[in-house]
């Protein structure tokens, strides 16, 4: 049996749906309620509390920590100030993405790297000859993600420091009640939010503190189904869903470069050498073959297809993590990797990979839609990401 997380004693009694889902090495709540709609809306209107402990976490310390990380990730670590957080991918020698995650700079030479898959061996392999200590703290560190417009007000009740001073993608040490934590102004929701990191042993205590402070604000415990809708609206990709790690790809065609995933902004070719640099430098000089884009499926078309079958339109209310073909005229031009109905923007949206030259914003496409067991085509168009971007996200 897969273990629960350090918060299991708190999340289990709340999980009325008994809807447990695997996430990495653990199980977490898929949704707490039988219907996860409320959990999603909490992210957008009040606040939602997610257990994100299953993330892999590595503590990286030592005089050469910066050098190691600069060798591994595609962004320039020397530009990451103490107290700052970088979102970044990392690649293999061919410049194909292995994983992506966040890097917290907790001290001059103290970092925490979080990611979706195990990367310990990769870090070791790149540390040869460096004075650096790499520790897998995945099980020692528990984490909660508090996301939504009321997140700051809730956390401020517990946090002695003024949270207005903690800027987007920054991190600080703090003490909530008697629990020592790091608070990062991050999240996977595209909304105002924080992630709070603590020792596993203190996890239940941290949950209780936030839970109680959140009550008056309508805090809702939320599972990964709700998060999965929010992150698509935010245009955030997910490993194993929107791309395959170069490490796991069965064939070359399944690998992607950061440029092909819309992460070109996170590749710094000016910095010292890093894994994949040569390949990426070369790729950058060539026209892109693929691009990661947002698509919006035409509602009237979908409605028409279903109405013709005598049915009300059906769209995925949970993120459909399946590849759906996209066509232009009769030609296959790519695929959507995550599609969902966006409740807040009232749009049928998807994250998609499109072949050159069909990825320009505004390009008209068709997406495959299954209506009464038959494959039909609904029109769709390429749109800018993210789909939902409230000013409070960065506030």
């Amino acid at each position, binding site marked *: 049996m897969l273990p629960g997380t350090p918060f299991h004693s708190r999340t289990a009694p709340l999980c009325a749906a008994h809807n447990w889902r695997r996430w990495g090495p653990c199980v977490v709540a898929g949704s707490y309620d039988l219907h996860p*709609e409320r959990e999603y809306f909490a992210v*957008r*209107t009040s606040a939602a509390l997610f257990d994100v402990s299953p993330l892999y976490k590595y503590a990286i310390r030592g005089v050469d920590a910066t050098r190691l990380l600069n060798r591994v990730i595609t962004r320039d670590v020397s530009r990451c100030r103490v107290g700052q957080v970088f979102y970044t991918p990392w690649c293999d020698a061919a410049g194909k993405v292995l994983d992506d995650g966040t890097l917290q700079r907790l001290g001059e030479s103290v970092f925490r790297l979080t990611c979706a898959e195990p990367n310990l061996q990769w870090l070791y392999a790149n540390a040869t000859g460096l004075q650096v200590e790499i520790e897998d703290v995945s099980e020692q560190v528990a984490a909660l993600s508090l996301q939504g417009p009321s997140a700051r007000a809730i956390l401020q009740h517990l946090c002695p420091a003024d949270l207005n001073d903690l800027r987007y993608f920054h991190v600080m040490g703090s003490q909530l009640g008697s629990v020592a934590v790091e608070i990062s102004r991050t999240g996977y929701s595209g909304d105002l939010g924080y992630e709070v990191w603590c020792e596993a042993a203190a996890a239940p205590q941290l949950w209780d503190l936030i839970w109680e402070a959140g009550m008056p604000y*309508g805090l809702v415990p939320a599972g990964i189904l709700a998060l999965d809708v929010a992150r698509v609206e935010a245009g955030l990709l997910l490993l194993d869903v929107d791309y395959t790690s170069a490490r796991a790809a069965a064939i070359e065609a399944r690998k992607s470069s950061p440029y092909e995933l819309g992460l070109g902004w996170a590749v710094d070719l000016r910095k010292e050498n890093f894994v994949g640099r040569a390949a990426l430098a070369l790729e950058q000089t060539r026209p892109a073959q693929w691009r990661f884009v947002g698509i919006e499926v035409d509602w009237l078309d979908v409605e028409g297809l279903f109405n013709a079958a*005598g049915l009300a339109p059906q*769209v995925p209310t949970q993120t459909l993590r399946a590849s759906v073909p996209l066509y232009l005229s009769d030609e296959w031009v790519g695929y959507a990797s995550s599609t969902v109905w966006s409740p*807040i*923007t009232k749009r049928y949206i998807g994250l998609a990979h499109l072949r050159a030259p069909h990825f320009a914003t505004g390009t008209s496409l068709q997406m495959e839609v299954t209506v009464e067991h038959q494959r039909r085509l609904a029109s769709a168009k390429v749109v800018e990401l993210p789909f939902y971007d409230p000013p409070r996200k960065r506030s």
Partner: protein
Amino acid sequence: MAKRYDAIIVGGGHNGLVAAAYLARAGREVLVLEQRHLVGGATVTEELYPGFKYSVFSYVVSLLRPEIMRDLSLARHGLEILPLESTFTPLPGGDYLLRGPDHAQTHREIYRHSPRDADVYDEYGRLMAQMAMAVRPILGMVPPDPAAPGWRDLQSLAQLGSHVRALGGERFHALAKLMTMSAADFLDEWFECEPLKATMSASGIIGTFLGPRSPGSAYVLLHHYMGEIDGAFRAWGFARGGTGAISSAIASAARSFGAEIRTNAAVQQVITKNGRAMGVVLADGEEIYARVVASSLDPKRTFLKLCAPADLPTEFREAIERFKIRGSSGKVNLSLAALPNFTSLPGMGMHLRGSISISPSMDYLEQAFDDAKYGEFSRHPYMDVLIPSLIDPGMAPPGQHVMSCFVQYAPYNLKGGWTDAQRTAFGDTVVNTLCEYAPNLRENILHRQVLSPADIESVTGLTEGNIFQGELALNQLFFLRPVPGWAQYRTPVRALYQCGSGTHPGGGICGAPGRLAAMEMLRDGL
């Protein structure tokens, strides 16, 4: 010379704003004139007690047309609709009926009251949804004129006929029954559980001066299912920020297309010349001219107050005078220090996050109506209660709440009139009734706003405080709304149009009257 607009819209309720947005989107120069300091009419949010926001009048959105949300990009202009989870009917004996989003849970719950009803509940829902599907096109259609049909009227009638024919025998018969029966009789054919029947029938009596046993009250049951067939696009729920957020979003869309909106600008009269509307005079005497004038006020106010009698044909005027617009509802808004605790289902839960219906039985509702028939407000009123702050915590300070109580019946023509003392007595009746189910309510009330139909009239201008600008009875719907022969948004005065809830498809936060009227104006060459 002063500027001449393409169109003046009288009244900045949501329909006036929708009409303005569509005209501006088509490139016309539009001016909206609203008498109050804020737009929205019966669709407003106001902070009458610091920190607590009331959806003062309308409180849930259900019929807002998806095409309007799309055409005007209302989501981009800030409209967010949050789901309501449940319908909770507390009962006097200490029991309750709770219906929620989960099918199996709801089945179990109804089963507790009636195993038979639990099984037919789904079948009923399916039938109603199918009928709603057949009837839905009507909401987006300019009513045909069957008495003097033009080419387009015939086409609409044919289209309608084919939809209805496609229903097939059994469903067609059900539709015919719905059109003619009372909600009580119709539901009696299906169910036996009193709180279930009463709560469902309530949607048929909201805003009307009918009881659940009055013929014609069944049709509105369908409206409840209209939203469902829009699939994920349905608009059933609570607008974040209260219903005023809907008006704000529409106003913002209208402005983005170039419409001008003036508040504190009450229109006194429509200026006419040779039977044609030329503009309006404001209460302060200012005259503003336009190629067309469209009024979103109710038909009585538009024709009997803003138009000179000489401008209207006598028969038309009489028909408008006969138009039924009886006020029957009141509203009580509360600021609460803590949540109500229901004796039948204590504590916090899904039951507080949806609609709370005080409708224990058919007799209860009918007796509530009996009081009103004889000029009293109901001693034990029907209520549709919502705790908006549980759905959008931004409606009240942290840990505190607002409560919206829609109350029926409160007749406009109350014996002795709506004095301050009567208003207070009405407010007390509402609170006392709720305290029978949730006794801690009284001690937690921080502020109370009581609105009689007379108050609704004086604030919004809705004649008699009728919430739909005229009853949604079958004799006043579709090509009969507001009066036969004038259901296509035009009026006997050339260049004067109607675009409010008094026109097809009627009241509620729907927007269709405003949209269809704008389209007719454009069709006429505006």
